[in-house]
C-alpha cells in the first residue's frame, strides 16, 4: 500500500511535495478516532489497525510519524540519537550521545555505525552544512547556551529534551535528499574521531558563518513567491510566540492548581480521622484527589518537556529560513547588479561575461533549492504541528481518563455502606 512515488534525489526541478499524495492521507479517514467499525484496516507494513480507542490510534500516528516523508520501502538511511552519558574529565564535564546509523547506501562503507558525539559535534556539523549547502535550509539545533545557574545541564529532563531535539535534527538531515549525501554528514555519522577544523566551528551564531555571503549589493525586489514566504514567516513568528506564552501560562496555572489540590486532599483525610461511618468515604475522596494530583503533575511535566521545546525549535527554524531568504536576496542582488552593469556596457559589444552567467546560474539554483526546501519545510511544519497538537490533546485526554477512573472507582465505595444500611434498618 505505497502512498506515492518515491522521491527523486536531485534537488532542482523536482515535483513539489505537495503535489504528491501524502503518506498519511490515504489512511487519514481510517485513523480518526471513533471509527470502531473498521475492523479490516491494515497498516502499510501489514499489522492490523486497532481503532477502538483514541489512545491507540494516537500511538499509531506516532509510529507512522517516523515514516512521514519517505515510503517505508524506499528509505535507506536510518539515524537515531540515544543513550546520553556523562563524561567527567579534569578539564570539563559534558554529555555524549550515541548516534546509531543503519544504511544501505553505497556512500557509506559499512551498513551500520555506532558513534558517540557531543553537542559541540552537532554544532560543527550544522555549521559545515550551512557552509557547504548555503542554498538549502538546515534544520535547527536546540539552544546552545543555557544559563548555568538557572538550568541544570545534567538533569535528566534537560538531557532528555536535548536528546530528542538532536535526534530530530539528524532525522531531518537524513531525510533531506541533498543534505543527507553531504560528506560532512557522512563523516559525522561514521568517523571514529571527527577531524574538525576548529576555525570555522568557532562561529556560533547560526547563519552568519557562510563564506557564500556576497554582501554589499543593493537589495532588489523579491519575486512574488519568495516575498510570500517572507510575509508568511513574518506573520507566523508572532503566532508561535503567542502559543508559547499561552502554553507557559497554562502550565503555570496548572501548577498552582496542583498546589491547592495537594493541600485539599489531605483535609479529607484529617476529617476522616474523627468520623466513624464517614471514615471510609472521606478517605476514599482523599485518595481520589491525590490520584488526580499525580495525573496533573504528569500532564504539566509532559507539556514542559515535549511541547515547549518543539515550539522553540520552530522559532529557530524560522530564523534560519529568514536568513536563507536573505542570502537568496543577496545572490539575486549580485546577479542583477552585475547584469545591469553589463547591459549598461551593451553598446561596447562585449560578450556577456561568464561571471554574470555564473551569477545567473547561482540565482536559478538557489531559487530552485529554496523552493524545494520551502515545500519540504511546509510539509514538515504541517506534520510537526499536527503531531504536536494531537500530542497535547492526547496528554489532556490521558489526564482526564486517569481522573475519571479514580472517581468512578470511588462511587461503589461511597454507595457500599448505604446498601448495607438499607438492609439493617
Amino acid at each position, binding site marked *: 500500500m505505497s502512498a506515492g512515488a518515491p522521491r527523486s534525489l536531485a534537488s532542482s526541478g523536482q515535483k513539489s511535495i505537495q503535489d504528491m499524495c501524502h503518506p498519511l492521507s490515504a489512511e*487519514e479517514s481510517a*485513523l*480518526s*478516532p*471513533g471509527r470502531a467499525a473498521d475492523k479490516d484496516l491494515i497498516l502499510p507494513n501489514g499489522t492490523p489497525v486497532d481503532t477502538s480507542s*483514541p489512545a491507540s490510534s*494516537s500511538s499509531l*500516528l506516532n509510529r507512522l510519524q517516523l515514516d512521514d516523508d519517505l515510503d517505508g520501502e524506499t528509505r535507506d538511511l536510518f539515524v537515531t540519537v540515544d543513550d546520553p552519558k556523562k563524561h567527567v574529565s579534569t578539564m570539563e564535564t559534558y554529555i555524549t550521545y550515541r548516534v546509531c546509523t543503519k544504511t544501505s547506501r553505497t556512500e557509506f562503507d559499512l551498513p551500520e555505525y555506532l558513534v558517540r558525539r557531543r553537542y559541540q559535534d552537532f554544532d560543527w556539523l550544522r555549521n559545515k552544512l550551512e557552509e557547504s549547502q548555503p542554498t538549502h535550509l538546515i534544520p535547527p539545533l536546540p539552544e546552545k547556551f543555557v544559563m548555568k545557574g538557572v538550568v541544570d545541564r545534567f538533569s535528566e529532563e534537560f538531557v532528555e529534551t536535548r536528546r530528542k531535539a538532536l535526534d530530530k535534527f539528524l532525522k531531518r538531515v537524513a531525510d533531506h535528499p541533498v543534505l543527507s549525501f553531504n560528506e560532512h554528514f557522512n563523516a559525522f555519522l561514521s568517523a571514529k574521531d571527527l577531524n574538525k577544523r576548529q576555525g570555522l566551528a568557532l562561529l556560533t551564531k547560526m547563519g552568519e558563518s557562510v563564506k557564500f555571503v556576497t554582501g554589499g549589493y543593493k537589495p532588489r525586489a523579491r519575486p512574488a513567491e519568495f516575498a510570500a514566504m517572507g510575509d*508568511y514567516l513574518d*506573520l*507566523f513568528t508572532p*503566532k508561535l510566540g*503567542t*502559543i508559547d506564552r*499561552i502554553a507557559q*501560562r*497554562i502550565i503555570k*496555572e*496548572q501548577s*498552582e*492548581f496542583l*498546589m*491547592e*489540590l495537594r493541600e*485539599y486532599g489531605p*483535609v*479529607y483525610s*484529617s*476529617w476522616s480521622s*474523627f468520623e466513624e*461511618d*464517614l471514615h471510609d*468515604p*472521606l478517605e476514599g*475522596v482523599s485518595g*481520589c484527589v491525590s490520584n488526580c494530583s499525580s495525573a496533573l503533575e504528569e500532564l504539566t511535566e509532559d507539556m514542559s518537556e515535549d511541547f515547549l521545546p518543539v515550539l522553540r525549535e520552530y522559532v529557530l527554524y524560522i530564523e534560519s529560513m529568514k536568513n536563507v531568504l536573505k542570502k537568496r536576496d543577496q545572490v539575486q542582488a549580485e546577479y542583477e547588479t552585475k547584469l545591469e552593469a553589463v547591459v549598461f556596457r551593451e553598446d561596447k559589444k562585449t560578450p556577456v561575461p561568464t561571471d554574470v552567467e555564473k551569477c545567473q546560474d547561482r540565482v536559478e539554483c538557489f531559487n530552485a533549492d529554496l523552493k524545494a526546501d520551502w515545500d519540504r519545510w511546509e510539509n514538515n511544519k*504541517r506534520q510537526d*504541528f*499536527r503531531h504536536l*497538537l*494531537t500530542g497535547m*490533546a*492526547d496528554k*489532556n*485526554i490521558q*489526564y*482526564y*481518563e486517569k*481522573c*475519571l477512573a479514580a*472517581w*468512578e472507582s*470511588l*462511587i461503589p465505595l*461511597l*454507595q457500599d*455502606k*448505604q446498601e448495607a*444500611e438499607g438492609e439493617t*434498618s
Partner: protein
Amino acid sequence: MADSGSEDIAVIGNTDLTPSESENNLKNTMVEKGTSLLKKMEISVAEAEKRTGKNAVNMQETYTVYLIETRPVDAASEGNNPVPDSLWRRYSEFELLRNYLLVTYPFVVVPPLPEKRAEFVWHKLSADNMDPDFVERRRVGLENFLLRVASHPALSSDKIFYLFLTEENGWKETVFETGFQAKADSRLKALHATFRVKNPDKRFAEMKHYGDELQAVISQLLRVRARAADRLYGVYKVHGNYGRVFSEWSAIEKEMGDGLQSAGHHMDAYAASVDDILEEEEHYADQLKEYLFYADALRTVCRKHELTQYELEMAVQDLTSKKQQREELATGTIRTFSLKGMTSKLFGQETPEQREAKLKMLETQIEEGEELVKERNSECDEFVKSAWVDIERFKEQKDHDLREALISYAIMQISMCKKGIQVWNNAKECFNKM
C-alpha cells in the same frame, strides 16, 4: 432510616420522601405527637424579589423578600393543582424564627440558616448580597431550612412555625408575645459565661469536641476548595486564548487552516465550560456549609447540657453547705469557716433563741434546696434524655447527608472529566485534519 428512641418522638427520616411515600410510613402516621408537618403540607420557597422601603430609622433600604408557598398534600394527590397559599418573608424574619426555636427547644440541634453574607468566596464569585446568584443560592438554602424544620419530630408541630408559614401579618408580634426574648437573653448570657462543670456527661463532652473538630475541618476544606476553584478557573480560561490564536493562525495557512479553526472553537468551548462546572461545585460547598453551621448548633446543645449540669451542681453544692451549717449549729462545732462563726467566737455566743431561729431558717432553706435539687436533677435528666435522642437523630442525618454530598461531588467530577475527554477528542479530530 431507622426509628429511634422514645414513644414521644418518631424519627421521620428522609426529607426527600414524596408525599405518597411518606403516607406509606404507617408507623409514623399513627403517632400523634411529633408527626412531621411535611406529611400534611408541601412547602417551598419559590421566588425572591427585591423591595425597597423605609427601615426602623426611617432610612431607605433595599432588601430581598422570599416567597413561601404552601399547599396541603391531599390537594396535590387528588390530581388537581390548586393555587398554593403564599406569603413573603425576608431573611431577618427567618432569623427571628430560628432564634425562637433555639430558645424554645434547647435540646434540639436546630437546623441552620444559609449564611448571612457570602463567605469562602473565590475570585469570580460575588460577595455581594444583592448578586442574583447569591440570592438564588440563598433561596435554596432557606427552602432547605424550612423543609428540615418541617420534618423534625419536635419542631414540626410548633405553632409559631406553622404561623410563620401561613400568617403573613402580625406574626412578629405573636412571636414576641411568647416572651421567648427573656429566655433568649439569659440563654445568651449562659452561653458566653465560662464555668467549670465537675461531672459533665462524657458523651456530651465528646460531642462538643466533635463539633469543634467538624467546624474546623469544614472551614479549612471550604477555604482550600475556594482557592482551588480560582486556579481551575484560570486553567480553563487561558485555553480560550488558544481559540483566538488558532483562529488568527488559520488565516495565514492553506491546508492547515480548517483544522486549526475548528480546533480553536473547541478550545473556546472548553474555556466556557468551567462556568457551569464551578456553579455546580458551589452547590457542594453549600452542602458543606450547612454542616459547618450545624456543628455550631450541635455545640450549642452541648453547652446547654453543661449549663443545666452546672446549675444542678450549684444547687447541690448550696444544699450541702446549708446542711453542713445546720450540723454545725446543732452540734456547736465549727468545721467550716464562716464570718458569723468567727464573730460569734470573738464577740460571744448566740443566745439559744437566736440559734433556734437560725436552725428553723436553715431547715426551710434546706427543704427548698432539696426541692430545687430534685427539680434541677430531673431537668438535667430530661434534657440529657431528649437532647441525646436528637443528637443521635442528627448523627444519622449527618452521616446520610454528607455521604450523599460526597457521592454527588464524585458524580460531578466524573461529569467534568467526561466533558474534558470529549472536548479534547473533538479538538484532536480537528488537529488530525490539519
